[in-house]
């Protein structure tokens, strides 16, 4: 074995020398033989003739020696590639079409695979991510599927849970960062003691928090830091953007909400917790935060070695039960749920991506089929080439190899172009508005490139095989005598070709109906009444800080001034504000137990309701409709009786017999006590989280009676609300130069963002479908043209015996129509099956309906359009010439 290998290597390296030596040896052999015959008395030319007969031609020996060497394959491939390049350049149109088709298939599928890989397949960039879980509180009795955890419980869990190596809580909100004289609002997370050790990530520069820093990190009830000598860890991105990646930032001070913080560390780039946009981490001594029934913390935990999620959940629920015995008033009915962190981060994005990857796989198949069809059609023009080469002594293996090289070359060019396209798409996606988690992690990594190579290779095989196989089966005789095939010949080949086109059409139909389903689903989402009127509303979140606006009077004064200035802006119809606005992610959004005052202590009468403080003109500004009673007025001030407005659904659930207005409602504020309110009005339900989410039970309190620092201001305008943004920024700056505006959006955009993924999925599917449709039309066109060329003779004869042009045209177009109809009916059958795969993505009923069928009905029409050109070619067949050639 070794000898053979060494010998092979030697022959490969010294191919040139071996060639020369063989040359010398062969010619010596011939010369010696000739000399021998001359010696026996023949004259030289006769001797040479006899030697040539006896020994054969030295060229054939030389050829066979060369073939026997390992370099031969390389050599013959080189020749095939050169030949293939010549062939492709001879027909630039055909080559470009094939290359672009493959580039489309490979590019689209590779880009989508890269996204799937980054979002779903690749583990989170944290050590041992599989043992990380998110912790949620749940209270099925109270109708709470899952919500945040309560801070004091968290401290008990940490002490008592045996199967977790740590539990950490966090709470993120926008804070104003001031450094080097400029201010901006950034997302800041306050995190508890276990946070960094539990996640297993240390600072890239400096350090994370010490126990001492944790112990003094106190916050007041408005989430304002009040402990002495506060410290902060900053994000890598912020460090580069604001501090020029200067390592001496550690130890420097920055201002957050007008307090001075010392920077102790910089996190590594890409640290994704608790969410990717966080720029600041503040320590938080949660043990000093007493409430057990304010479920507002995010929480993450790590399972102990070898412990399953179920075991840990069971263990933690035992702790939760013990706590509910110890603190029945706050903890009764509350249990916990553990969800794998990866699942929580990725959500149902995986389902969307797998459906799209399936769709793009179909597109790739259609692309392969298209290249195969084009190659088969093209093959006819090359006519007797294979036969000639066979007649000249090429082996079938050589022919097959050469055709495969040609198709590999096409696919390779297409694949390279496709990979380039995918790289561009990925670069674009990273900058795009994120409707998918982890989108910023998408990259064309080696695995994705491997996918591209595999896709390209299978393209080459699928697209090249039918043609290569057919060519290699060519007979030396059949096609030599005549450039065109007889009508009776090549039945099998035509079946393959027509079958490929039918398959292409069927794939296009599947994708079209899929796109139709997604479009209808999107339409339904769009048609959902969210319960407010987002058009013409501009939203500006305001975060006041404790240092300057700590007292209720100061907060009231700021907002009074702000509203007065905003209302004076030209084009503003009304100005309202709420602690949190529907579909806007910023601002305090929490739920509390509420019950009718006349039914105290009755478990069944208690409901969890979302609480928000609003200004009098909030309902009017958002277009929320009053159902009963009145909205708030300026008379609902600090000294007036405490008033509340209920959402319609909640009012009905609390007072099923009706007549909620002028009843008394009790809200349980946990440690701050319970308060009674006069119900003054009822407004319509609204879909706070966008059309995909159900309406929630809400109560509204007058901001004047319960001033919050954080408010989201809404302005209803006469014109395009976005045009008003600069003026709003200016007003904010004038009132307080250190409160920079941020997060100013129009409400329609925010509402649209809640189902942006539906829109993008629909658009992606629609573009795949259109691409597949175009491909199948190219396919039909190619096949018809092929058929006309192939059956030129038959057409000629028909015309000679009196067939009209109309007959010929309908003969061509009819064939196209037949193929398309066949493909369409197969495709519709498949679509019914594949619609089931897409149904989890759909909003509302997801059957193949009339509208999607209408989209498909377009196909036969387009088939007629593309058959115009081949039909025209058919009528141009010269009957006389065909008959002359026989």
């Amino acid at each position, binding site marked *: 074995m070794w*000898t*053979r290998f060494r*010998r*092979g290597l030697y*022959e490969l390296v010294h191919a040139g020398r071996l060639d020369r*030596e*063989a040359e*010398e*040896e*062969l010619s*010596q*052999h*011939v010369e*010696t*033989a000739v000399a021998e015959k001359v010696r026996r008395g023949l004259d030289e030319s006769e001797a040479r003739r006899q030697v040539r007969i*006896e*020994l*054969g*031609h*030295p060229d*054939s*020996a030389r050829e*066979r*020696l060369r073939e*026997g*060497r390992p370099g031969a394959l390389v050599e013959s491939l080189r020749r095939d590639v050169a030949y293939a390049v010549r062939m492709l350049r001879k027909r630039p149109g055909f080559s470009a079409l094939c290359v672009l088709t493959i580039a489309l298939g490979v590019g689209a599928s590779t880009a989508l695979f890269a996204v799937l890989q980054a979002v779903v397949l690749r583990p989170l960039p944290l050590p041992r991510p599989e043992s990380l879980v998110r912790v949620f509180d749940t209270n099925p009795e109270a109708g709470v599927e899952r919500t945040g955890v309560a801070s004091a419980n968290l401290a008990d869990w940490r002490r008592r849970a045996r199967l977790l190596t740590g539990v950490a809580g966090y709470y993120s909100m926008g804070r104003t960062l001031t450094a080097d004289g400029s201010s901006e609002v950034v997302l800041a997370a306050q995190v508890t003691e276990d946070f960094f050790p539990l996640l297993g990530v240390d600072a890239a520069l400096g350090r994370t928090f010490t126990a001492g820093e944790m112990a003094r990190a106190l916050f007041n009830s408005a989430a304002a830091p009040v402990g002495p000598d506060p410290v902060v860890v900053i994000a890598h991105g912020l460090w580069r953007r604001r501090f020029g990646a200067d390592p001496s930032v550690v130890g420097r001070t920055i201002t957050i909400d007008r307090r001075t913080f010392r920077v102790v560390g910089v996190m590594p780039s890409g640290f994704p917790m608790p969410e990717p946009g966080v720029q600041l981490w503040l320590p938080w001594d949660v043990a000093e935060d007493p409430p057990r029934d304010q479920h507002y913390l995010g929480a993450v935990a790590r399972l102990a070695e070898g412990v399953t999620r179920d075991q840990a959940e069971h263990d933690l629920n035992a702790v939760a039960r013990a706590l509910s015995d110890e603190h029945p008033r706050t903890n009764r009915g509350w249990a916990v749920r553990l969800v794998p962190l990866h699942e929580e981060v990725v959500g149902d994005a995986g389902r969307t991506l797998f459906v799209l990857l399936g769709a793009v796989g179909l597109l790739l198949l259609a692309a392969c089929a298209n290249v195969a069809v084009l190659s088969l059609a093209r093959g006819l023009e090359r006519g007797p080439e294979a036969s000639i080469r066979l007649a000249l002594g090429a082996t079938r293996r050589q022919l097959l190899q050469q055709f495969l090289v040609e198709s590999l070359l096409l696919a390779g060019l297409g694949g390279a172009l496709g990979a380039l396209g995918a790289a561009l798409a990925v670069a674009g996606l990273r900058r795009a508005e994120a409707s998918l988690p982890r989108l910023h992690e998408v990259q064309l990594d080696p695995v994705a490139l491997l996918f591209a190579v595999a896709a390209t290779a299978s393209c080459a095989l699928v697209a090249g095989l039918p043609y290569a196989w057919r060519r290699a089966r060519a007979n030396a005789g059949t096609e030599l005598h005549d450039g065109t095939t007889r009508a009776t010949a090549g039945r099998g080949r035509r079946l393959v070709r027509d079958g490929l086109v039918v398959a292409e059409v069927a794939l296009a139909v599947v994708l079209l109906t899929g796109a139709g389903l997604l479009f209808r689903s999107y339409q339904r989402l769009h048609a959902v009444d969210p319960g407010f009127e987002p058009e013409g509303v501009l939203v500006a979140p305001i975060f006041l800080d404790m240092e300057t606006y700590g007292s209720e009077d100061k907060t009231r004064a700021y907002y009074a001034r702000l509203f007065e200035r905003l209302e004076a802006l030209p084009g503003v119809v009304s100005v309202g504000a709420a602690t949190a606005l529907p579909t806007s992610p910023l601002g305090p959004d929490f739920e509390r137990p509420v019950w009718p005052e006349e039914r105290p202590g009755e478990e069944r009468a208690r409901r969890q309701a979302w609480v928000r403080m609003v200004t009098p003109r909030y309902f009017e500004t958002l277009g929320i409709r009053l159902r009963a009673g009145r909205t708030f007025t300026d008379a609902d001030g600090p000294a007036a009786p405490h008033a509340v407005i209920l959402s319609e659904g909640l009012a009905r659930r609390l007072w099923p017999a009706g007549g909620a207005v002028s009843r008394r409602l009790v809200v349980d504020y946990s440690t701050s006590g319970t308060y009674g309110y006069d119900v003054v009005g009822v407004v319509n339900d609204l879909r706070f989280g966008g059309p995909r989410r159900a309406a929630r039970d809400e109560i509204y309190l007058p901001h004047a009676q319960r001033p919050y620092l954080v408010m989201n201001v809404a302005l209803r305008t006469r014109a395009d609300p976005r045009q008003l943004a600069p003026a709003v920024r200016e007003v904010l700056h004038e009132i307080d130069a250190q409160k920079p505006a941020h997060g100013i959006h129009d409400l329609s955009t925010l509402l649209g963002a809640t189902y942006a993924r539906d829109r993008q999925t629909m658009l992606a599917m629609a573009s795949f479908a259109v691409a597949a449709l175009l491909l199948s039309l190219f396919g039909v066109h190619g096949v018809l043209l092929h058929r006309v060329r192939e059956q030129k003779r038959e057409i000629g004869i028909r015309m000679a015996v009196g067939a009209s042009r109309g007959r010929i045209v309908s003969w061509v177009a009819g064939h196209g129509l037949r193929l398309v109809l066949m493909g369409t009916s197969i495709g519709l059958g498949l679509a019914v099956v594949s619609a089931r795969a897409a149904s989890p993505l759909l909003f509302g009923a997801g059957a193949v309906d009339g509208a999607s069928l209408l989209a498909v009905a377009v196909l036969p029409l387009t088939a007629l359009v593309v058959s115009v050109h081949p039909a025209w070619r058919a009528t141009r067949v010269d009957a006389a010439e065909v008959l002359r050639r026989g």
Partner: protein
Amino acid sequence: MAAEKLDLLILKTLALEPRHGYGIGQRIGQVSGGVFRVTLGSLYPALQRLERTGLIDAEWRASENNRRARYYQITRAGRRRLAVEEREWERVSAAMDRLLKAT
């Protein structure tokens, strides 16, 4: 001529003494009384094959008429193979003999 048969004849020829390609062809032609005629296109690929499998060696030497020629000689592995093949040949040809004469 089948490739294996030619290989066997070449090995047998070289078992006596090293020869160059022409010599091998001559010898096979003479000894077989002209029954086997060796063409360039069969002889040299066979030599290449045998050399590659290590049954023969080749080197350039001065020939009888003082020109450079490539001489082939049998290797130890070649002799072993020859012995095996000869036995096999005898067995097969004896069997063929019996079969053909039996009728």
